[in-house]
């Protein structure tokens, strides 16, 4: 039953073939069996999940069930969940139980879904391998010696291993799309402002966006239907109508204009990844799409600009973790400065400290214009690159990552880790949506095709991804490794 997509499970619940309680118990059992080797969950909320499942079954019996009622989900541990530990993958928040629900959590509760627990992640969403978690690294279900990607690595691994049919992630520079690619699942980063950020612990506020991670584009469409929309508690969420993303999944692709950014097929791209992506593109040609090369000339500035803007925002966003009101507090502080210094030095891991230092430096007097102001100018140029490209083509396609999942511990140098996000990071700077869909393998390790659209083109991206999944079966492949440990 864990091989099924959300769509299939929803039908099974609807026909009475399955109860939500049976489904929930099944996934809880799988987590118990397999997660010792994967480490994809930080917290499993079994009791709450069973209660929610029973309530969902009751609602269904009363005729009050919606499309998602009774379906289990996992939440990245960056979303505040009332009464449940919300750690953000950090020692700093190991003792933090959120007193409120994030807006998206509220929305899924209202839709009747069942929360299985909170998934592992790079600390404060800073990382591309899930090795920066206080709770230890997550392993890739396709190959336990490989990373699952990050920062939403727990969510990606849990979906890939069939420990949950779907999960929520967040994406600041590729944190949904890259782990989706590494774990062979489908992950969508919506347009900035499409989904409320309220209750999502901030890393880089102008880049963070929550999105669905599931087995198929169709599943993601149903999840986005719940998540998307304006929230009065988030001024950066956009007051714009939400279409039914499931309705347009089957629109034909004939005449679709695909652009291949030449900068996404250059040096550093693994030839086997490139081969898989080119084959995927040829599938689209067979579906009636036309393909042309385009250029995004400022692409090589994306990583430097991102590593000015994101740490700058993070250095300020993470100031509230000071040991005073919540979170980790050092033992016996001698004075206020000692309290700050030791609480933060003990509570934050190395990568988080590195980014706080970078951000503090770039915002400092005398450096602000050279770094922050300049990076914002670059950001506008990058955005313009995309807008110009979308004058000529409907969607852009390329690899989600230059390589398949790398080995645990392989990338010791932070800059080589940052370069992992070369194809995903510009998308956050531009605020546009992107989706990663499974498109083949290099050995046992999956390859992800990234599809990008213009602002608020989620319906189109989901349609384009769904049509590919109608024509291919990459997204239906299951990792054998995870099954061995069950």
């Amino acid at each position: 039953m864990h091989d099924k997509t959300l769509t299939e499970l929803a039908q099974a619940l609807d026909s009475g073939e399955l109860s939500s309680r049976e489904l929930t118990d099944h996934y809880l059992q799988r987590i118990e069996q397999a997660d010792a080797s994967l480490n994809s969950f930080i917290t499993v909320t079994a009791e709450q999940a069973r209660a929610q499942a029973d309530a969902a079954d009751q609602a269904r019996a009363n005729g009050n069930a919606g499309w998602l009622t009774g379906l289990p989900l996992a939440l990245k541990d960056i979303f505040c969940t009332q009464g449940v530990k919300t750690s953000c993958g950090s020692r700093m928040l190991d003792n933090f139980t959120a007193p409120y629900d994030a807006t998206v959590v509220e929305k899924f509760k209202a839709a009747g879904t069942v929360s299985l627990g909170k998934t592992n992640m790079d600390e404060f969403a800073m990382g591309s391998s899930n090795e920066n978690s206080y709770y230890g690294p997550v392993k890739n279900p396709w190959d336990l010696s490989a990373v699952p990607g990050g920062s939403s690595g727990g969510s990606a691994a849990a979906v890939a291993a069939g420990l949950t049919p779907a999960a929520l992630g967040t994406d600041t520079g590729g944190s949904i799309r890259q782990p989706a690619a590494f774990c062979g699942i489908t992950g969508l980063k919506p347009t900035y402002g499409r989904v409320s950020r309220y209750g999502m612990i901030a890393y880089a506020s102008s880049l963070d966006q929550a999105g669905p991670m599931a087995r198929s584009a169709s599943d993601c469409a149903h999840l986005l239907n719940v998540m998307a929309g304006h929230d009065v508690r988030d001024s950066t969420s956009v007051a714009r109508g939400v279409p039914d993303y499931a309705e347009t999944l089957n629109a034909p692709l004939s005449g679709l204009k695909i652009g291949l950014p030449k900068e996404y097929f250059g040096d550093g791209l693994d030839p086997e990844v490139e081969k898989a992506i080119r084959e995927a593109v040829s599938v689209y040609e067979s579906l009636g799409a036309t393909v042309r090369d385009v250029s995004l000339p400022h692409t090589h500035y994306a990583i430097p600009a991102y590593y000015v803007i994101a740490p700058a925002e993070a250095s300020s966003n993470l100031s509230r973790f000071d040991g005073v009101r919540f979170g980790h507090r050092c033992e016996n502080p001698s004075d206020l400065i000692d309290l700050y210094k030791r609480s933060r030095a003990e509570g934050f891991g190395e990568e988080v400290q590195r980014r706080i230092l970078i951000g503090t430096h770039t915002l400092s007097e005398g450096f602000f214009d050279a770094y922050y102001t300049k990076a914002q100018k670059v950001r506008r140029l990058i955005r313009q690159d995309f807008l110009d490209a979308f004058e000529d083509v409907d969607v852009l396609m390329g690899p989600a990552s230059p390589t398949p999942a790398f080995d645990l511990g392989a990338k010791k140098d932070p800059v080589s880790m940052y370069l992992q996000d070369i194809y995903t990071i510009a998308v956050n700077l531009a605020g546009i949506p992107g989706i990663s869909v499974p498109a083949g393998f290099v050995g046992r390790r999956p390859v992800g095709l990234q599809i990008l659209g213009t602002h608020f083109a989620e319906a189109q991206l989901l349609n384009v991804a769904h049509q590919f999944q109608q024509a291919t079966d990459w997204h239906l492949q299951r990792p054998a490794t995870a099954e061995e440990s069950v």
Partner: protein
Amino acid sequence: MQWETVIGLEVHVQLATHSKIFSGASTAFGAEPNSQACAVDLGLPGVLPVLNEQAVAMAVQFGLAVHADIPEVSVFDRKNYFYPDLPKGYQTSQMYHPIVGPGEVEITLDDDTTKQIRIHHAHLEEDAGKSLHEDFHGMTGIDLNRAGTPLLEIVSEPDMRSAKEAAAYLKAIHSIVTYLGISDGNMAEGSMRCDVNVSVRPKGQEAFGTRAEIKNVNSFRFVEKAIAFEVERQIELIEDGGKVIQETRLFDPERDETRSMRTKEEANDYRYFPCPDLLPVVLDQAYLDHLRSQLPELPAEKRERFQQALGLSAYDASVLSASRDMAEYFEEVHHVCGDVKQAANWVQGELSGALNRESLSIADSPVSAVQLGELVQRVLDDTINGKAAKQVFQALWHGEGASADAIIEAKGLKQVTDTGAIETMIDQVIADSPAQVAQYRDAEPEKRGKMIGYFVGQVMKASRGTANPQQVNGLLKDKLDALL
């Protein structure tokens, strides 16, 4: 050497919104510690700010009142520093694009001259919480009720040249914000605080001297005292061959002196950058026009009208327009009694005296404007004389009656104007005072005018103060002269 003082003020005005600038928590003063701090005010992980539109409207109204440019776009920035009563580790403020641009405020000095003080800009920001160092046995208590309270920081140009000008400027700002109703202006509760920048330079020199900033001065009187001390300190320092250093100082009202808090070298680098959680504030012309149409008559306009249309002196106009409460009270008294001069005299005289004696504000006056207006009316229509009027006022003040008429009636203070009745009393007094009558008759004619006072006093006494004094005077003179 002749020295010139240069002063600029940063005035923090707490806006009278119901809820905080970025959250729905109440801003009411004096609640139990931390009972008015919600998730947003506490800076919990994941929370986001939402701008209070009322705070924006109030800031814009201030800008319109000081004839300022209101830029179409303003932006909130984060001012980053660590302090236990600053929950997020940054204060949301406006550094680069404030909501109110350059403007101008007119101040009135003691000699009735006026001066324009330029406003550099005014920006919106959130207040921090309070650190309580007493009662916590070596630890610090944090009360976050005040965290997120909206403040408008009004920054002047260095246009003031004396402590008196600075105090007059602060009063002018106080009067504008209370007229607009955008702040209660309560300085004791911290609704208005100011930072004073002071420097001195040789008279005639154009370049400014090095300034010291005196933080958190919270009364008109302290502003004058702090500046007076600081000017003297700086002049003495320079004349003794020393140099003023740029620093932040604290005013100690117990000793009337300022003390160094931190020098420029120790100052924080606040790492300002645009707050990514808030969108730029965009104000269109229609919004500004709407707010402009809602503006009340402001103190300067009122002062002008009191002089031009009502014929009050510059001094009276200035006193009576000093606060909106005062002006509204005066205008109501005038409306009820119909006489500008009498209304002005009563409000500035009897009423203000009584309020001052009991340290009451005019809004808390036990005598309402209508009550006072009716009282003045009874003086004007000769129902009572001036002496009786003071008695009636005291009775109203102490709540001895609902209206002037009721008190006049109850106390029998109605003025006797019946000539026959007064003549009867005069005849009786003359009959009872043969010795004084003889003295009067024998006196030099020019001394008789003075002597008549005795007879007037006796008649007034006989009437228990109710006889019309002018009438008594005239009739007495006639009768006494008839005896000559």
